[in-house]
């Protein structure tokens, strides 16, 4: 199994496509950072428009490394699934279309192991991708913009998390994002097992995410009640829950707290169920599959 995993990793990280994702992310984050460096204060003022009339706010402190990272993640994490699909959608079907799958499957390794090794290799890729995002969006932002309290805007109000209460939230948020991305990877894997070309699963994964997100966001009662609770996209944004701080009755934040931990745990559980189901289905189908490519 370890051998197989090493081989799969080797294949993934020798593929130019893999590095495309890293380059896209770096370019995207640098663009946001540059924009905020130049216009961050104005942008914050615009964001907090109505509040500016009643409150004095130190906007230069508001645009800090933590806030920049939070902003980046909000924009970026919605799109990372595409980059995950780019690699995960290719792991089986790419080999089928290249013709190497038949060589691989005629070797003395079990098909279950092949799928699990491919999924684990994808997990390493996703981990590397998120680590890359963390380094650029968090470490670089902190270096450039400095450290200060994080203000999170929600539709029903603002909340302030003290600077020394932020970092652990990012750790958990990235951890959560990892689980969410592994669901995407599992969808891609399943589609990849079912397909013989590599574009299909990538496009299909993105399509599924778009449709599910739309249904999740549409506030149509029948969807909200009967479909939404079962869609994985409903749980994908759970990482934000770590930035919803708990508070007392009169609105004083409680350091180190999370407003609603059960909601996050439920999301994690739902996503793990998705992963287990999708990977099991992939293994089951691949074991039965006649390799004709």
């Amino acid at each position: 199994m370890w051998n197989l995993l090493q081989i799969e990793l080797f294949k993934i990280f020798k593929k130019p496509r893999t590095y495309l994702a890293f380059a896209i992310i770096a370019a995207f984050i640098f663009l946001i950072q540059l924009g905020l460096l130049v216009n961050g204060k104005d942008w914050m003022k615009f964001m907090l428009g109505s509040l500016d009339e009643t409150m004095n706010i130190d906007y230069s402190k508001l645009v800090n490394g933590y806030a920049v990272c939070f902003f980046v993640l909000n924009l970026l994490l919605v799109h990372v699934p595409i980059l995950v699909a780019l690699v995960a959608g290719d792991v089986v079907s790419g080999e089928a279309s290249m013709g190497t799958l038949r060589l691989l499957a005629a070797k003395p390794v079990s098909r279950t192991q092949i799928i699990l090794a491919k999924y684990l290799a994808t997990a390493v890729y996703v981990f590397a991708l998120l680590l890359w995002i963390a380094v650029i969006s968090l470490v670089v932002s902190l270096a450039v913009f400095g450290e200060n309290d994080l203000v999170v805007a929600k539709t029903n109000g603002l909340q302030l998390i003290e600077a020394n209460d932020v970092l652990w939230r990012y750790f958990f948020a990235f951890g959560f994002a990892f689980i969410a991305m592994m669901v995407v990877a599992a969808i891609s894997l399943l589609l990849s097992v079912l397909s013989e070309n590599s574009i299909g699963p990538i496009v299909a994964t993105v399509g599924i995410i778009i449709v599910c997100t739309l249904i999740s966001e549409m506030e149509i009662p029948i969807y909200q009640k009967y479909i939404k609770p079962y869609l994985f996209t409903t749980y994908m944004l759970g990482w934000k829950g770590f930035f919803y701080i708990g508070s007392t009755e009169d609105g004083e934040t409680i350091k180190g707290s999370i407003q609603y931990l059960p909601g996050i745990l439920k999301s994690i559980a739902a996503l793990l169920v998705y992963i287990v189901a999708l990977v099991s289905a992939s293994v089951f189908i691949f074991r039965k599959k006649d390799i004709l490519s």
Partner: protein
Amino acid sequence: MSSIIKVNNLSKQFNDIHAVNDLSFTVEEGDVYGFLGQNGAGKSTSIRMLLTLIKPTAGSITIFGKDLSSHRHDILKQVGAVIEKPDLYKYLSAYDNLAIFAKLSGIKADKKLLMEQLKMVGLDERAGSKVKTFSQGMKQRLGIAVALVHNPQLIILDEPTNGLDPQGIADMRNLILHLSRELGKTIVVSSHLLSEIELVANRMIIIHKGKKIVEGKVAELLDPSKSLVQIETTNDAEARQKLLQTKWAGLLHDNNEHLQLKMNKEDVPQLIAEMVLLQVPVLSVHPMHSLEDYFLSLTTQAGHVESFAN
């Protein structure tokens, strides 16, 4: 001599299509076993079943005396294969490709061994080049290296000369003979060209529409002095049983649909006389074409005359 491959009543059905239908054959140790059939005859499906790429609908496969489905891992360690086109990881170097498949075959391959292997197929100087820069012939050679890197006992080559130029075809032929004669490997080689099989194989099978037409020693099957004689009786099965008790048993063809014997034409009157004595009512005696003619006729029907032109 023991059987390396024993296939019994193997069938594979894709939806309504019987790609392989009740196929049985045996490959003995040291054979270069030709697998002959036109395109779509079921060669590839059969070979893929030998390599566990396709699951049989019915029948059994025994390799090295073990059941393939229950001893897959042990058996495949001793099998090397080139399946159709030699497709490899294009974005990896020749060396990396070889290293990956060596590892997958469960052997610890050091650099020296891998380089020797590449040298054997004349690619040692291109070890670091990406496969996408290779010509078809080079890919084929690398495919052979991949198939042989773990020193397997059984080598399966599916249409190994496809897409090769005449020099490449000759090289392939020499390689097969080298592996067989000098290294004592058992080899299964498939082709749609009788001429190819004839030059390398000692035994062969011809399949058509998923069914076995004939299996036997190449020298005997292609012996121009012998031809196939088909005898129509009132009860072929009973006649077959009776003939099995006689000296003609060895000439009987393994074909359940018709009663066929491979024999010299001069011996036909004697056979008829004996059948009469055995009280087998003979309705007709029909001399068939030679095997070569027969195979040619199959492929001609399918419009593959041009394949035989060279």
